[in-house]
């Protein structure tokens, strides 16, 4: 789960990091009055609190030189969707003149199976751009997850991105706080970009954190999911999540249901390989009940992008008869078949499943290639 900028900054501030002075403004509040109350003076930065990537380039960050501009930009931002998302909150912050923009992040290195610090003296660009344009500038340092980030490691990183003296000390203090935030909040990513160098001090102008969804139960203070606000999910993805389906929207017209992430992806790929275009990814997982299958089928019947539906099941823990029962139930409830449906059943209890489907007048394939060809020609 992505955190909002103001949340990530608050976490860092609680760990002793100096952050820009700022105030949150909600829609309907007077941004000028709130900013004045908070002791701010123009120039200030007005920032849409949205979770979409590339917020700045999409016009979500405005520099206001006067109080009039503050009012104007706030009005604008509250009414302009950033990549489809209208912010509910703005963060108004003091504008901080700075000498340089650095990059600092902590992510999990899958191969090393350790956290890795990434830092560069070329902040401001995103990490992909830095990787392309200044790959040699990126410093990498692994951290032993039991021992944590050692002070000397933080100093070495700071030195290698060109800092010295008090700036180096300030950076290494910042990095230590970032690492604490990273571990305490079970983060997959904790990043500041740009991390401004202001005199002999570093100040995070932006901050991002992504918290491991599997660890949200340990962070009840964060636990309200924010599907709608995140900009990560489409309308139908949000609907799917609310009813517990692992669904990803795609651009084609063949609705896909599979069991298991790998097989479901492969089913998408098969459709593509044989000339079709998948409309979605929908994984019913291992050992799905008839009820879940029914929910999934009904969902795709409503999902407008899917003009037809391909259900591809290889029974392992998942039982073919359960799946068949779920499909039959869904179709019975709908009364009739709103969209053509092709089913492939193999593995555990596939025979039984096919029998159930046949009794309901639905044909099921054994061979996935035959099935996928049938879907495409429909």
């Amino acid at each position, binding site marked *: 789960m992505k955190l909002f900028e103001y949340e990530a900054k608050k976490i860092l501030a609680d760990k002793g990091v100096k952050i820009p002075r700022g105030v949150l403004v909600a829609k309907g509040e007077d941004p000028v009055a709130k900013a004045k109350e908070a002791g701010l003076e123009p120039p200030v930065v007005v920032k849409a609190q949205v979770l979409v990537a590339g917020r700045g380039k999409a016009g979500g960050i405005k520099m206001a030189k006067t109080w009039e501009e503050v009012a104007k930009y706030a009005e604008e931002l509250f009414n302009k969707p950033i990549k489809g998302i209208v912010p509910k909150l703005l963060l108004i912050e003091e504008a901080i003149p700075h000498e340089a923009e650095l990059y600092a992040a902590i992510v999990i290195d899958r*191969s090393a199976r350790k956290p890795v610090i990434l830092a560069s003296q070329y902040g401001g660009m995103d990490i992909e751009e830095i990787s392309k344009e200044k790959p040699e500038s990126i410093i990498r340092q692994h951290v032993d997850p*039991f021992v944590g980030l050692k002070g000397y490691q933080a100093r070495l990183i700071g030195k290698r991105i060109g800092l010295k003296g008090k700036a180096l000390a300030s950076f290494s203090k910042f990095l230590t706080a970032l690492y604490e935030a990273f571990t305490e909040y079970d983060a997959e990513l904790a990043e500041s970009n740009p991390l401004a160098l202001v005199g002999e001090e570093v100040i995070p102008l932006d901050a991002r954190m992504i918290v491991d969804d599997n660890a949200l139960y340990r962070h009840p203070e964060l636990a309200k999911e924010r599907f709608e606000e995140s900009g990560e999910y489409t309308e139908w993805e949000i609907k799917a999540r609310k009813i517990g389906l692992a669904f990803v929207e795609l651009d084609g017209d063949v609705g896909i249901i599979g069991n298991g992430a790998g097989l479901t*992806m492969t089913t998408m790929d098969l459709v593509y390989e044989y000339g079709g275009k998948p409309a979605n990814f929908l994984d019913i*997982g291992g050992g799905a009940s008839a009820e879940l299958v029914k929910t999934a089928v009904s969902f795709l019947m409503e999902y407008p992008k899917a003009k037809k539906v391909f259900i591809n099941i*290889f029974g*392992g823990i998942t039982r073919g008869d359960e799946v068949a029962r779920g499909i039959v139930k869904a179709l019975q409830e709908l009364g009739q078949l709103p969209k053509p449906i092709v089913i492939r059943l193999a593995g555990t209890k596939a025979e039984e499943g096919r029998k159930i489907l046949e009794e309901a007048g639905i044909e099921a394939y054994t061979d*996935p290639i035959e099935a996928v060809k049938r879907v495409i020609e429909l």
Partner: protein
Amino acid sequence: MAVLLDENARVIVQGITGREGSFHTKLMLEYGTKIVAGVTPGKGGMEVHGVPVYDTMKEAVEAHPEANTSIIFVPARFAPDAVYEAVDAGMKLVVVITEHIPVHETMKFVNYAKQKGTIIIGPNCPGIITPGVAKVGIMPGSTFTPGPVGIVSRSGTLTYEIGYALTKAGIGQSTVIGIGGDPIVGLTFTEAMEYFEKDPQTKALVLVGEIGGDMEERAAKMIEEGKFTKPVVAFIAGRTAPPGKRMGHAGAIIMMGTGTYQGKVEALRKAGVKVAETPFQIPSLVKEVL
């Protein structure tokens, strides 16, 4: 011969009294796996399908000192502790079936196990099977048959599908390992490949990858460097998966430009690996290299 799991495996099931644990204990026993004990805190003294249950691994190991392998069906919140308990009890191999374990926890217990010399398979995995010998996992046993081909896979169901296709084509398997779909797993492709390289029964390897991470690229590098010398056939799932979206598995996500289908396929092909366009081409590709 086989890889990691042979007829000497003596297995403890952690979380044996749960729905999943109990169900799969039955299936594993039916497959012939030698399960010597089960552990569920507070349920010591029970029996599950004839297997004695203990409160702690310590007691289980004291009563069954021959135990060397455990399989974990414990819910995500308690699974990391079960791993530490298994490692500290001296298990050589620990299979973690549990899904949804926080990645910071996995990172820690995987490092811990490594230090102590315990091999972890998983988490979020179907386990390991040596066809005809033993199964420590949740895969349908009937799908696999003994033979010369190793399988190592990030995906569960897809592995059954591929195993089934191989079996139908008359090609058996030496050992099949589902390494799990999480970003961090105990046993990676390259680590598994070190074992398959040494196994005389294994004549060829099927590698089943998916988008996200760089395990496939590392496998390719290992092959290129001549550290894995047997023929490899690969399939990568997620050719049509969009970047930035998590495709079911926590680990199946293209992030920061890395982990793409194209990158993986290119790396493997460059290393001389035959990459199948669909899983169903695998049997014929395997036949070519056997």
